[in-house]
């Protein structure tokens, strides 16, 4: 899906836990997430801390759009 959307000219940030698979399938902007069963959350945190975590992840993804990349890039933050 990432590749097909990019093929029509819309940039994609792929948020995923297993970044090696994302690299293998050819995503260009990759944001590492928490865990496979809960990529954008963490049930061990309090609701407030989890909200902060989610905010940070989505913020990082939005910022990644504005970064020029000339090769596949995993954004560490």
């Amino acid at each position, binding site marked *: 899906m990432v590749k097909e959307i990019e093929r029509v000219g819309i940039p994609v940030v792929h948020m995923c*836990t*297993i*970044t*090696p*698979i994302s690299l*293998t399938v050819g995503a260009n902007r990759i944001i*590492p997430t*928490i*865990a*496979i*069963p809960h990529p954008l959350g963490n049930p061990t945190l309090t609701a407030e801390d989890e909200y902060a975590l989610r905010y940070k992840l989505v913020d990082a993804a939005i910022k990644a759009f504005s970064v020029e990349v000339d090769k596949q890039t995993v954004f560490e933050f």
Partner: protein
Amino acid sequence: MKLELGFIKINDVQFSNECAVKDGILYVNPEDVKAFIYDNDDVKTYIKSITLDIAKPGESVRITPVKDVIEPRCKVAGPGGMFPGVISKVDTVGSGRTHVLKGAAIVTAGKIVGFQEGIIDMSGEGAKYTPFSKTLNLVMVAEPVEGTKQHDYERAVRFAGLRCATFVGALGKDVEPDEVKTFETYGIMEGAKLFPDLPRVGYVHMLQTQGLLHDTYVYGVDAKRIVSTLLYPTETMDGAILSGNCVSACDKNTTYHHLNNPVVAELFEQHGKTLNYVCNIITNENVYLADKQRGSDWSAKLAKLLDLDAVIVSEEGFGNPDADLIMNCVKQEKQGIKTVLITDEYAGCDGKSQSLADSDPLADAVVTAGNANMEVVLPPMDKVIGMLDYVDYCSGGHAGSLRPDGSIEAELQIITGATNEMGFNCMSAR
């Protein structure tokens, strides 16, 4: 470490007033078995009823939903007992002597997670794909107490199955085996002296540990909490590793598979002839990337520490564990250790889609155990042990899988052990 396995050939299983193994026949009194199974707090608390049944090869019988299959075994000499840390006290197993009721199996069934259990057909098309159509099965169907949570139910059925296998296995304790085989691996220096010219080979054994009832236990430890470590191969023959898995039926390693690991068997077959079988490295398949990196880092580090020349890597499950598989491959290959991978494929019904979720050019020696998406039609059976309620929802099934006449149209994925990634089956491809 040296272990003798004494194989007692079982030719028939019968319900009886007594419990015994005589002249190759396993006699079981269901009430005695149940009493032993129930002597456990989890079973007492969470299992409302247990029904025992017998299924034999060639019968028109369907068993579903299947959770685990266990071979009845008994330690007769040497430290520890079967399933250390769970049924027996923690003690290092894998030496001395163990008796095996060869040809018999305990099958546990119940709805557990429902959609992640499998089917065993004792005859017809489905029987071709599961090794457990060829065993004499004592089937234990466990009904939960109302309101029991799935993880409590899973644990109680796991314990119940292991207790059933332990009780039945013990019936072979004083029986003279039909055949005795010896398995021995050596210390690092000793092995190098004995086989100075043979390549040093290890087995990287990946264990399913994704959590949410996708779990494997090592000496009673939930394997998602281990770092990669070493086992003598014979430890696996005494139940050091057991399945707590509710995952796709075709490629989960049941406890029976762990006890009869064909990679271990084949490496022992070649041990001292074409290679020096050094040891097993167990590693897990967790759901955090850091765990995957750590697990594969450590399996590679241990292989290097042991000066291995080559490793066989077997996967369990599919999807994200494909990433663990490839990491285990690449890290070994990059330090000069050759790898052969055993996996299965999810290549679509027509076999034309990408087989694995991850890949790498260094993974250039791969054995496939078959395409789990292949469609099969299973004929109706005269008798069902368990229930058909979950067939449409099982992994590999779809709405309408269970047809009105009792036949089943589904993917191979639904059959227990069909594409086992230790290679405990007959499907492959070139």
